[in-house]
């Protein structure tokens, strides 16, 4: 899986690279418009992250170039602009997703994974992990081949934690992933706690291992082994 990161802030690129490397992706980056154009003309990528504001050009033009090249991978716009108009323009230009800065790295990871699923399997795939099986197209979870009755939020929570398995996920990033603007960060602890508690209980009741570990004071972690 090859990912190109087009972003002018090198430190941010470093963080993204470091985070995504652990996921087993091959990552390259371009710090400006010119370098980005050169890369997309020479190489092929599965996923491209594009910042709209580049020092020497506009991210939209890169997307246009990709579209004329019949690019088949996924495009995620990463931008500080966050009005509805910006999002609509971004998605209409041909991008698959729009992520507003500053974002949580697990969120970026989840978006990339979700995009890979859509691009590769056209929305139908499932992952298995020990006794756990998650069917993405049907949005169903099975434990020991028995279906687990989850609410929409619980399903999203599980998928988010699972996507970022082996990492400590802060309650803020979970809250933002699940509810976005609809929750105050101040409230997030109680909320995330309640939903994690319910999810964990349902999973344990079906005989699953206790995969969701509480990291005291920070958040949660889906144990990788």
């Amino acid at each position, binding site marked *: 899986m090859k990912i190109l990161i087009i972003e002018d802030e090198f*430190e941010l690129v470093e963080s993204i690279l470091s985070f995504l490397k652990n996921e087993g992706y091959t990552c390259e980056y371009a710090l400006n418009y010119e370098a980005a154009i050169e890369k997309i003309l020479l190489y092929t990528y599965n996923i491209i992250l594009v910042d709209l504001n580049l020092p020497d050009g506009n991210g939209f033009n890169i997307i246009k170039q990709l579209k004329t090249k019949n690019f088949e991978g996924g495009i995620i716009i990463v931008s500080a602009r966050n009005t509805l108009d910006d999002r609509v323009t971004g998605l209409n230009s041909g991008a698959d997703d729009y992520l507003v800065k*500053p974002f949580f790295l697990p969120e970026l990871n989840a978006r990339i994974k979700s995009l890979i699923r859509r691009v590769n399997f056209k929305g139908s795939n499932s992952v298995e992990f020990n006794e756990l099986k998650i069917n993405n197209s049907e949005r169903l979870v099975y434990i020991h081949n028995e279906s687990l009755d989850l609410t929409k939020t619980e399903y999203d929570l599980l998928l988010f934690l699972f996507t970022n398995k082996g990492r400590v996920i*802060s309650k*803020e990033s979970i809250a933002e992933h699940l509810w976005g603007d609809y929750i105050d960060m*101040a409230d997030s602890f109680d909320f995330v706690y309640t939903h994690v508690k319910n999810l964990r209980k349902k999973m344990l009741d079906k005989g699953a291992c206790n995969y969701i570990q509480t*990291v005291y*004071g920070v958040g949660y972690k889906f144990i990788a082994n």
Partner: protein
Amino acid sequence: MKLLTKTTLYFITIVLLVLFIGGIVFYFYFKSIVRREVDNELTTNMHHFALILHTKNFKLDSTKLLLPLGYAIKPLAKINPGIFSFKDTIMFDLSSQRYQTFRVIQYQTYFKKTPLQLSIQESLIIIDELIERVAVAIFFLTLFLLGGIFAFNRYFIHQIWSKFFQTLETIQSIEISKNDKLELPVSEIYEFTLLNAVFDKMISRIRNDYFNLKEFTENISHEIQNPLAIIKSKIELLSQNEKLDEEQIKLIHSLQSNAVRLSNLDKSLILLAKINNNQFSERENINIIDVINFHLSNFEDVIQTKQITVQNKINSTFQIHADINLINILILNLLKNAVRHNLKGGTIDLAIEQHQFIIGNTGNEQDVNPDEMFKRFAKATGQPESLGLGLAIIDKICEYYNYTIQYLYNNKYHKFIISF
């Protein structure tokens, strides 16, 4: 009071004062001229009279019948010869049948050794007539002047001040946010040209400031969110380290949540600045119930977790003409406020009455003064993580569209009424 009315009033006062004083001065001046003329005439006549008297064949006895009207000869016991003396006297005038002031000249002389006093009198009726004439003349002069001023002012307003009013109109209709060229009427009057030049300079300076500010608010979003994105990502990488102890994890988490807070604060302040800068000028027809239901459905999860009962009494709707971004933010913030400050197991009531959206919720009494509540950073104590900007944003959006917002509190129940 209009400038012209004010100056006209001053002008009229001065004109009336000048004419009044001028009239009095005129009167006394003419009066003295007339007196001098009368005195000169009487003196000349007296010379003639005395001369005739001294001719040889003049007989004193026969003179009484021969003397013209106003001439008199009176024998005196003792005289002081050779002196002309004048005096004013009031007598009955036969010709006009009334009492009048007469000027009398007296001259004492000897006629064939008989001491005599010769006198000639002349009516001063001309002076009375003079007062009348002067009064009439001043009256007509005043009328003429006032008429002149009035006519002149009308001309003044329409011809000269019209440019001034055109300038005012242009300035009033100018939109700072648009880069239209300022076209002020050209006037040949120096003061108006100066005024136009000042306006021109002022508007371009305001525009400059406005566009700078606008650019600044646009840039600041990008500029601040970038380092924040870096900070957030670095903190996340740091928190993946498995060798961290509990104390370090706490520190990292504190960094994390404050970075999030800063980012949200920045977003909210940029939003407020954008509203202030009129950057939400697009308008479309919005069905208010659609917006409410959309956000309400997104809140479902949060509402359920907090065990809040929503009593949705909305059974009518209305259209508003506004920017969808702002209306979304308005409704979202109102609902968020009602959820956030609600009690566990509390209620939220929603209703629409005519052009009003009413949202009520249970919640503890806030120690913020209701008048202060819509100000930025007005937040209740004990909620340090609240940004204190939610209500300020609501208030700003209402102000932007001239909606009114009312806040009522009664017995642990908060109510907001927005009149669109």
